[in-house]
């Protein structure tokens, strides 16, 4: 079972994600992804879904959807 300090239920995890600061991090990441998508081939990695770089992405979700 997960350690005691990890979420005991999916609801606990959802609550933790709603804590102050998480939305800001998510927003910054989403901005990064939009920037990548807008500048393929630029110094920032392009709009690649993760599996472009790691086809063996089964480490996560057995290859995630976009």
């Amino acid at each position, binding site marked *: 079972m997960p350690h005691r*300090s990890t979420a005991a239920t999916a609801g606990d995890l959802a609550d933790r994600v709603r804590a102050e600061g998480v939305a800001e991090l*998510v927003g910054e*990441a989403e901005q990064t992804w939009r920037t990548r998508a807008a500048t393929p081939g630029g110094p920032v990695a392009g709009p690649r879904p993760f599996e472009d770089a790691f086809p063996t*992405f089964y480490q996560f979700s057995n290859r995630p959807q976009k």
Partner: protein
Amino acid sequence: MVDATDTDVPAGVAQYTGMRGISAVPSYVILQPTTLCNLDCAYCYLPARKFDRRMPVEVAAATAATVNAWAAERDRFSVVWHGGEPLAAGREHLAALMAPFNGVEHHIQTNATLIDDAWCDFFREHDVHIGLSVDGPEARTALRVDRAGREAYSRIVRGAEALRRHDIPFAALCVVSDPSAELARELYPYFRELGCYALGINIEEHEGVNDRSNAYAEAAVRGFWAELTAQWRTDRAIELRDVEFAIRYAGALLHGDADAILPRQMDPIPTIAHDGAVTLLSPELAGFSSPHYGDFATGNVLHQPLDEIVRRAGEAAWIGEYLRGVEACRAVCPYFGFCGGAHAANRYFEHGRFDGTVTEHCRNSKIHLMEGVLDHAAPQHRGDGR
């Protein structure tokens, strides 16, 4: 599709609908051009890496007979050449193995030590996507040695330099054997300097012939992921696989579409060994058997079409048990929507069976990853494990 068994869902656990059964068509295959690796890393899981057992072209051709049809149906299809060390097969042989494939993207995961100008020309000619296996600065790469015990780091660096000289983009995979916040502070700038466009972190796993423990302290692992998130946040030039995927999932929870993250079905991930034997779902199981389950390979492309092997996946006893294990994860684990269930090899090598649930790999690379990212973002709400 291979059916999975539904289970009741306890109160408080969301019903995630992805990862039900195994898709009849994968999105990539992994091929082993040779079992040989010129290195002998302390944590390697491969059992036959000192032998040069090369894949005959007939195996590649038999695989391509199915893969080319799959690729024709999809926008993209990847063929991943994985070892051993794929470059140890030599350019001529690797080109012969690639020749039967049409309409696919070729990927090579390499330790970089053999890369030179000639290999860079080969990568260009065959439009190969490159992933390097690098564990960080020299002192952190001490577990990567050759068979004589000599350090591999200087050769790895030369290989990366050759790629940069030829403007060939590369991703990097880093095995972490001693996770800590201090290590994260060291690794991110290092890989930024190395020049990779993407970085994946693999916390060392207890699997295959690697029997080193991977039971790390929760605080150390969460601290590692939290600090790596902080590093990325200050300089987001690298596509940081694990952290970004955790953020993606956190965003999906916030946006209310978390159930859309997981694929609807599992990718069968066929791994075709040098001799044509096919192992599904977990490449780390290739070449292994057990007294209880028998050989984990479920067919051979020299005797049976690959699509038929995939279609009949559920006939293997261990795969049926694994599917029950995935349903057990779905029923009890709050992180299932992020993770999709413990991987088959981790279950087997940690538990000796496939229908258990959480593994040390789950903790290190899924649960503590998600919690570490959230620790960074909202430290005031972090749990009592720090």
